């Protein structure tokens, strides 16, 4: 009975992980610019993968496996924000158009910071394809 309840908890963890991963991928598909997509992919994706690993380790009930799973989850939690920061910085400097910026770039106007001088001149804010559709309806 105890083993069965543990296995059921593992299944619930795995299903929660799958839901989070699906939501992260939905955000990756539907959001408007690379920074928003990265916001969905890094946060929800980490939670989803972590829940999945925790559920799979809990299903085995083995101490060593749970240790490896804990190391994996800890590694994910420690490195994904770092990779996300590097990627976000690179996205900003690569000059991709950002939604909702309305042609104004507050970071580029700040002249005192030499680290931000390399950014490209940016196009005015891009609209999503859907926004064009709603505008023609109005």
């Amino acid at each position: 009975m105890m083993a069965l309840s543990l296995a059921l908890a593992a299944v619930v963890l795995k299903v929660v992980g799958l839901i989070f991963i699906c939501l992260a991928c939905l955000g990756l598909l539907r959001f408007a610019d690379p920074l928003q997509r990265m916001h969905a992919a890094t946060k929800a994706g980490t939670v989803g993968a972590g829940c999945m690993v925790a559920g799979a380790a809990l299903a085995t009930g083995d101490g060593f496996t749970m240790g490896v799973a804990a190391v994996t989850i800890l590694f994910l939690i420690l490195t994904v924000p770092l990779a996300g920061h590097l990627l976000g910085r690179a996205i900003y400097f690569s000059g991709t158009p950002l939604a909702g910026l309305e042609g104004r770039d507050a970071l580029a106007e700040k002249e005192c910071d030499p680290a931000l001088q390399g950014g490209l001149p940016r196009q005015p804010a891009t609209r999503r394809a859907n926004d064009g559709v709603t505008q023609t309806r109005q």
Partner: protein
Amino acid sequence: MTDVIMQLNALVDMASSVLLVALIVPLAMTIGRMLYGPSQADRFVALDMLTGVAVAACALAMGTTGRREFLDVGLGLAVFGFMGTCALAAFLERKGKMQ
């Protein structure tokens, strides 16, 4: 009572396989973004997400096959995904500054 317990046992046995098949949906979404992605940054973000999906698939493969080694594979994939994302981000940043 034993009937319910047997059904629950069957559910637990099947869960990993079913979830592994269901993982095709986020995989397809990520690959779609990677193929469609208007800029290179989108493709790199999709690659980062693909690492997370692969780690989850490794964890589920451990549940399906019962082999513990798949979790080590998942840990290795997480390490290489992190290094790959860092390298691609550095590449993208340098490319943006050179233009």
